[in-house]
């Protein structure tokens, strides 16, 4: 077992090149012995199945504690995020350089809103 699996300590990121580059500068980037990275750069050529596969892979890994995803990328896999209910790894939507954060689209806040809606009935 990898030392990171014990603590679920790695930070994964799915985002545009600037977001991933910046976070890699911060030191979160990790490529294991099987050449599996904890990040995915999403650009105009990245297909939807690639993003979905990466997200599923990150959610299944035992060494990742949190997944950071640009909100505009999250919008592409919104249905998948809305159905994601695991406690770990946590998913956090973050803004990108060109796409500001919109609380109305955040899956976590939508879930809370739904709870409030159910309670009011």
């Amino acid at each position, binding site marked *: 077992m990898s030392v990171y699996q014990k603590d679920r300590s790695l930070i994964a990121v799915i985002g545009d090149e600037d977001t991933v580059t910046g976070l890699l500068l911060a030191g979160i980037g990790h490529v294991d012995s099987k050449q599996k990275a904890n990040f995915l750069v999403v650009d105009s050529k990245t297909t939807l199945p690639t993003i979905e596969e990466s997200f599923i892979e990150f959610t299944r890994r035992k060494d990742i504690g949190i997944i950071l995803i640009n909100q505009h990328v999250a919008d592409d896999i919104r249905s998948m995020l809305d159905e994601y209910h695991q406690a770990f790894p946590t998913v956090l939507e973050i*803004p990108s350089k060109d796409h500001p954060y919109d609380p109305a689209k955040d899956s*976590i806040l939508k879930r809370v809103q739904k709870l*409030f809606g159910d309670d009011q009935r």
Partner: protein
Amino acid sequence: MLANKLDQVDIYLQQQAELREVLRKGFMHLAEAKYILGPAVISSDSYDRRMQATRFWSDSSSEDQGDDCELEDTNKAKAKQTEAITVSTLRQRKGITQVVQRNGADNDSAKPNEELEVDHSKEKDRKAKERAKRLRDPLYMFTALPPKSLRDAQDCFKRVVSLLENFREPLEQLSKES
């Protein structure tokens, strides 16, 4: 319970606002670094395919609490270096004074050289560790002489990673179904 949820939503939104601001500065510095070094240098083509993480989710609050993404890292590193040099100098002096106080025996004349050698080897080990640490710094993935803007961008994104710790509790509370 609903009141608790609302409080957590409030905290979550405040943290998002802070994160947004730090990210904005980070992107700005990164854009400046791209302008200086060229977009081909600061790109995914320069990523080191053997990189190892040095910042983690479990201890993301342990470093770099600087406001406004100032270059506190370099100042701290300089202070540590000065302290290390002072300590190693003291050790050397102590070794020499101990030797001076001893009387007579022939084997004592060999001891000063041995102690100085031990101190030198410790100093070398320390320098080798610092060099290895510098090589692991992702800053040097892109260029051997990073400009100030790239260092500022790194500081900002390190601050972003530190801020993630503040999301832990709100995310935990908001993810609960009940």
